[in-house]
Every structure is written in structure tokens, then in C-alpha cells.
């Protein structure tokens, strides 16, 4: 009898009918990320932060007893591919979808998750993402409508600039940022004397720097993706730009500093998330990340890591794998490190899925990002 039972088990396993004892049930949380193309820096950082969290959670038994099945798909930094990848994972009945990071990719793929009513945790910062009545979209970083007022106040009060030149990347992320930034400048009577658009993946910035330099602005605001930011900084250094270079998170990122080298020194700006934040939990995370992946994580790594713990916390609060109940519970939630230590910093999500938490003013000094001030949550 025992032998026939064993034989039946072997046959069942052979047909993929493994018993519950042998195969622990999983929960599908796929990720659609920019693993190649212009957004590879952002996507791979997000991926690695996410993988770290998934490994940690699975090592402790998963979420509600189910291990996370974290299928990973590459958007190649292309909006149409990201849409196809989201469609692909929706066919597998996911609990929540992670990514993409690029705003353009988010904006085209979120229509699918809206129809399917599946929560989507994204890395995009374009203001429009949370203004489209998607019932279950959530950010992992500030939307531009929250970050631009902070940077505008800094340019007015910290730099005391009366005129500013803007260099932005002509995609959904850059255009949204530029529109919000210019609106905030107008509200503060700061004149935009040069408005220079650049292309995603652009390699040569010499003409753009000449144009910016000729405008002779009190400050220069740079809003491009990581690699383009580094190329711009190198060219700005080459052409001897002296005006303060101001950015929002990306310009002060670790990868930009690594790529731009000494040309990044002196860059200042607002930083939504950073491993250099004077917060012990963030520093401890950054060290574990560096040991695990052998490089210094940027803000996207923190976004990927905390996104998974956000899912874990909300799901455990709901007590079941119900995507609609997840979205309902996540709106208006505040998660503190006391409740979930790996959320790293207290964070709140509003009814639109926008996130609010402390942020920072930083400066690059000797190839290191240095935090000079902590800005409180907007809701405080």
C-alpha cells in the first residue's frame, strides 16, 4: 500500500500534480521594468531593491503563508513593449503588478490594469499618472506636483535666483516636470530665460550647453534621466558653466555621480529618496544592498525595496489576496517603521495613490551626496 502510494505521488508529480506538502502555494507579483535601453539604470536599481525584499520575505515564509512568485519582464524602456508585457502578466491573474519606472510606460500600461482592476505600484513621477482616476495605482516616489513646489522654494529662498534656465528631456517624465516647474516659477515671479528640450538617450549635449550658457541665468534646472544627466554635467563642466546646477532627485543620484565624476561636484537640489539620508534604517538597507549587489543603490533601489514591503503590509492588513480590497485598504494608509521596519521611513498614500513622506535637500561634495536639510512631509 505504502509502495503504491509512493508510486502514485511520483506519477502525480510527473504530471505536475504535486501535493500541497511538496509545493507551497505562491502569490503572483510580477514586475515590468526597464532592464535595458535608456531607462536601464532606473529599472535595474528598482529590480535589485525589489529582489532583495522578495528574498527576505520568502525566506520568512512569504505573505500570508504564500511565497512571492516574482516574474520579471523587460520593457526595453519602450512604452509599447511595456504595455504588451503588462497584458501578458495580467493573463496570469496577478495579485499586484510592480512597475514600470518610466512615466511614459506607466501612462500607456495603466489603462490595462485599470480595466482589470489590478493594483499597480509604479516608479513614475509624472503628475498625470495619479490624475486619471485609476482606482488602484500607487506611487513609490513623489509625483511632480509634490516635488516641484519644494524645489521651487529652494531656488527662491536658498539660491535666491531671479532667473532660471530649464533643460528637460522630451518624454512624459520630462515634459510633466518642466510644465510643473515652469508653473511654480511663474507663481514665484522667477523668470524662465531658457527652455531647452533634449531627447531621451541623447549623447551629445554641447549645443544645449551653449544655449543654456548664453541665457546667463542665475540658476540652471536640469530634469533628465540618469545617463543624460551625467552627459550634460560632463559637457557643462567642459564648457565652464558657473551658475548653480539644480536638480530633482535624479541629478543627485548615485549613478549620475559615478558617471559624471568630478563634474557632478556642486550640484544641488531636492532628493525624494536617497541612501545618504541620515536615517539609520536607510543606511543599514544601503549597506545590505551594496554587499548583495556590489554597487551603491540609488533612489530607485529604495523604491523597489519599499514597494514590496508596502504590498506585504497592506495584504496582511486585508488578510487575504483580494486585489480590490488591497486597493481600498491602501488608499489613505500610513505605514510607519514601527509597524513595518523595512518600509524604512514613514510613508502615507492618499486617495489618488500619491505618496507623502519626508524628503531632503542635498548637494554633491567630493563625489558624495551630502544631505543638508530634511524637509517634513507635506501633510504635516
Amino acid at each position, binding site marked *: 500500500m505504502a509502495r503504491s502510494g509512493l508510486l502514485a505521488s511520483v506519477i502525480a508529480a510527473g504530471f505536475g500534480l504535486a501535493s500541497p506538502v511538496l509545493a507551497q502555494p505562491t502569490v503572483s507579483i510580477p514586475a515590468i521594468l526597464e*532592464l*535595458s*535601453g535608456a531607462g*536601464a*539604470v532606473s529599472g*535595474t536599481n528598482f529590480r535589485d531593491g525589489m529582489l532583495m525584499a522578495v528574498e527576505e520575505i520568502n525566506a520568512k515564509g512569504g505573505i500570508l503563508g504564500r511565497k512571492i512568485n516574482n516574474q520579471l519582464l523587460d520593457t526595453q524602456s519602450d512604452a509599447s513593449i511595456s504595455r504588451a508585457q503588462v497584458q501578458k502578466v495580467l493573463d496570469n491573474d496577478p495579485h499586484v503588478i510592480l512597475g514600470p519606472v518610466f512615466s511614459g510606460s506607466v501612462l500607456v500600461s495603466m489603462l490595462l490594469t485599470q480595466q482589470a482592476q489590478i493594483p499597480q505600484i509604479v516608479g513614475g513621477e509624472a503628475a498625470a499618472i495619479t490624475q486619471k482616476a485609476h482606482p488602484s495605482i500607487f506611487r513609490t516616489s513623489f509625483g511632480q506636483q509634490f516635488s516641484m513646489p519644494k524645489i521651487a522654494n529652494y531656488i527662491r529662498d536658498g539660491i535666491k535666483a531671479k532667473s532660471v534656465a530649464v533643460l528637460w528631456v*522630451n518624454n512624459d517624465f520630462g515634459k510633466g516636470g518642466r510644465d510643473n516647474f515652469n508653473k511654480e516659477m511663474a507663481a514665484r515671479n522667477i523668470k524662465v530665460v531658457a527652455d*531647452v*528640450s*533634449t*531627447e531621451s*538617450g541623447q*549623447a*551629445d549635449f*554641447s*549645443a*544645449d550647453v*551653449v*544655449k543654456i*550658457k*548664453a541665457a546667463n541665468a542665475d540658476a540652471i534646472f536640469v530634469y533628465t534621466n540618469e*545617463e543624460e544627466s*551625467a*552627459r550634460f554635467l*560632463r*559637457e557643462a*563642466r*567642459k*564648457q*565652464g558653466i558657473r551658475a548653480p546646477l539644480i536638480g530633482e532627485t535624479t541629478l543627485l543620484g548615485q*549613478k549620475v555621480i*559615478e*558617471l*559624471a*565624476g*568630478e*563634474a557632478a561636484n556642486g550640484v544641488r537640489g531636492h532628493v525624494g529618496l536617497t541612501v545618504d539620508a541620515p536615517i539609520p534604517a536607510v543606511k543599514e538597507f544601503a549597506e545590505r544592498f551594496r554587499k548583495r549587489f556590489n554597487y551603491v543603490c540609488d533612489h530607485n533601489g529604495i523604491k523597489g525595496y519599499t514597494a514590496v514591503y508596502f504590498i506585504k503590509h497592506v495584504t496582511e492588513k486585508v488578510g487575504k489576496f483580494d486585489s480590490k480590497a488591497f486597493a481600498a485598504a491602501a488608499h489613505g494608509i500610513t505605514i510607519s517603521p514601527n509597524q513595518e521596519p523595512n518600509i524604512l521611513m514613514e510613508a502615507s498614500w492618499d486617495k489618488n495613490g500619491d505618496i507623502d513622506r519626508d524628503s531632503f535637500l542635498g548637494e554633491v561634495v567630493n563625489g558624495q551626496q551630502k544631505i543638508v536639510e530634511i524637509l517634513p512631509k507635506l501633510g504635516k
Partner: protein
Amino acid sequence: MESFIQLLISGLATGAIYALIAVGFSLLWQTSQTINFAQGEFVMLPAFFILAAMNAGAPFWLAALIGIALSVVVLGLLFKVVIVDPMLKHGVLPLVISTIALSLFLKEAAKDFYSSQAQPFPTLVPATDLDVFGAVVSTQSLAVLVVAIATVVALHLLLHKTRLGRSMQATAQNPTLARILGIPVERMVLYTFLLNGVLVAIASILITPIYLAKFTNGEVLGMAAFLAAIIGGFNQVRGAILGGIILGVLDNLSAVYISSQYRGAFPLLILIAVILLRPHGLLGRAEERTV
């Protein structure tokens, strides 16, 4: 005026790099009817050879020499022996398709074996500002310009002032007659491929500090070199040089004085104008082929 001088110098520097790549394009076409659509990837790859050598502990100058040597062997010798020789006997089109396949292979290989992310790359000289007629000009731009021009001049001297160069030109112009005159045609063709390996490696060393080392760099550079070669004249080295410089300068000037958003369209407009008004290129000569 200050802006114009800066634009001109940086445009000349970039244009001179395009010219180096376009010259290689043109040389391969002239000697072996090889249209190398992997030429952009040939410029991307030596940067990764150099970075790999530096990661192994070599100083930059030694890594650059290793990069040039590997480029000559892999992108010159192996390219000819493994791809061009077996495919050329089947005609130009199969060879073109093979070089397109090679470009995809090189791009994906660089991504898989090195990184999908951009990597910093050392500059030839430290960044110091110089005053040129009131304009602040970087020593880095000048260094790129000087090295690129020196390479083009050395190439010109090699092709026109040495016996080897004249033999290579004779092979390019009429291989049958060159063979009758006792010129070792096969060896001359091989030398052209090796020379292209040197040119793309130098172009790589000059352009990568600006572009950063990334597997996608070849897309932009290959297109720029192809356009430069057609605009200047595919069958003339001096045409490829002129085409590269026109492209580099025009790109900079149009981005500032016309529109930065439409800058990518201007080289194509010039290409259309050249095809309509002077189909064999600005300095090229009309050719007839029996097909």
C-alpha cells in the same frame, strides 16, 4: 560670437570623430564592396575592451593600446576572415545582411557580458578651460580635435605618400589591373580591414568620454558615419572626411540657431538634397557598375 566659436569647435571635434568612422566605412567599400552596417558597433566595442583591460589593472594608456590591438584582431582580421570572405562570394546583399546580424550580435553581447548600463570612460586630458577669442574652450574638446585631425592627416599621408598606401588605392580603384601590376591585392584588402580596426578604436577612445560607454552607442554613430559617407561621397576618403565634419558642425549649429527639437532631421534633409542634386556625394565620383 562667443557661442558661435564654442559651437564650431565642439562641432568640429564631433565631426572629426564621425569622419574617422566614415573613412573606415568608405575604405571597406572601395576595397571589398563591403557595406558594413556594424560600423557603429565597431566603435562601441573597443571602449569595452579598454574598460575590461582597466578592470584587470592596466593603466589607461596601456588599456588603450590593448583596445586598439584587440580591435585590429577582432574587428579587422576576424571580421574579414569569418564574415566577409565567406559571404562576399555570394554577393553584396548577403554580406549586408550578415553585417546587420553582426551589429545586433555585438550590441547584445556587450550588454550581456559587460552591462546594460552606461559606464564612465576616462578622458584623454583633464578638463581645463582655455580662452579662445573670448570663448571658453575646454582642453578636452581641443584634444579630441587634435587627435582626430592628426589621425586623418596620418591616414592621408599613408594613402598618398607611401608605396603601401598607393598600392591600397590601386587595389580600391581597379583590383584586376592592380593584380597585373604585381600588387598583392588580397594582402592590401586585408590591410584595409586592419586599418579600419585602428580607426574605429581611435574613434572609440575619443567619443566614449562624451557618450559614456554603452552598448547602444553604435546606433547613433553608425547612422552618423553612414550619412557622412553618403553626403561626402562613398567612394572617396576625402569625401567621407568632409561629410563627417559637415554633419558634426551642422548638428551643433542647427540645434542652437534653428531648433533643438528637430536637430535630428537636418542631417537627413542634407542627405535628401545631396541625393537629389549630386547623387555621387559632394566629393565622390560617378561610378558605373555592371550588374
